[in-house]
């Protein structure tokens, strides 16, 4: 029996050690994913709590044999999307980008020289992306989801996700090249 199956089996039998093992295995990962989406420690902590509260409610109907992380990741994405959408100010940058009002720095990508950047600069550049663009980048490049899966996970049309990804990567490249 795999770790996930064993955790699920214990949880579904109402055993607290099962839930303790679930937290041990996934709490940090859920927090890191939530943080990568919202970029705010306290919010990420609250959202992590919400993810696991939902997992408790969903656990009885979870099908044994399936891996737990894709399920937890889906809950994390939904909880973070709800959080972002509940605060219109957070999405104002996404909306500005959708209207074509990008912030300064939109130089011709062909002019951006190839340079080395450090991890801190990459994190800072990610932080400056509009939240939904950042979420698409993380689901695609850190979770390894396909374009279709990202679109389904974010409940957005495929074309919108492609546009988000193209513009976000271009922006990252330009910003990082300019800093290096």
């Amino acid at each position, binding site marked *: 029996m795999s770790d996930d199956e064993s955790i699920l089996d214990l949880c579904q*039998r109402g055993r607290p050690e099962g839930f*303790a093992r679930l*937290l041990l295995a996934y709490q*940090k990962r859920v927090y890191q994913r939530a943080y990568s989406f919202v970029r705010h420690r306290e919010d990420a*902590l*609250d959202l992590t*709590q919400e993810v696991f509260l939902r997992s408790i409610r969903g656990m009885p109907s979870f099908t044994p044999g399936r891996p737990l992380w894709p399920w937890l990741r889906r809950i994390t994405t939904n909880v973070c999307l709800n959080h972002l959408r509940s605060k219109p100010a957070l999405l104002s940058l996404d909306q500005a980008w959708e209207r074509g009002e990008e912030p300064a720095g939109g130089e011709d990508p*062909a002019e951006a020289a190839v340079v080395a950047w450090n991890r801190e600069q990459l994190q800072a550049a990610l932080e400056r992306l509009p939240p939904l663009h950042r979420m698409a980048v993380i689901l695609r490049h850190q979770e390894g989801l396909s374009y279709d899966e990202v679109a389904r996970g974010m409940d957005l049309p495929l074309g919108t996700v492609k546009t988000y990804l193209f513009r976000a990567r271009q922006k990252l490249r330009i910003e990082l090249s300019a800093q290096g």
Partner: protein
Amino acid sequence: MAMSFRCDDSLVQLYVEGALEPAERLLVGAHIRICRACQQGAAAYKALLWDLEHPEPEAAELPAAQLQALSDRLMEAWEQGGTGQAPGRTPARAIWDFSSLWLRSVPVMLGSAPARRREQPVAKQQEPDGWMTRVGHGLGRLLVKGVRRR
């Protein structure tokens, strides 16, 4: 070098991602080989995707004490059957949690649903909610909507 009409940054991104059809890949690859700007672009995107796909694990570390406190709160929530409350919850959230708690307890009291803390076969616990729970959840949503309107 300024972009000519043949240069297309989105195609360069897709080339680096390996997301082009074979014929497109050949064409874009041929262009990149002769275009310095697109070569630079491809190299930068390759580095960018590598860094994105290999983040440093400690990038979003949280102090162990905070994680432990969160674990403790969640274990308490587990003991209560998943009705733990997030900090800073809204009135709507409080009503929802209360209604969920009450509705969860009614079927248990009537013996029509298994209690979480009781040892039960897995199949038994996977039964869908009873009609009382469904009606109750509907009432809970109405209450939440009412609070939101105010």
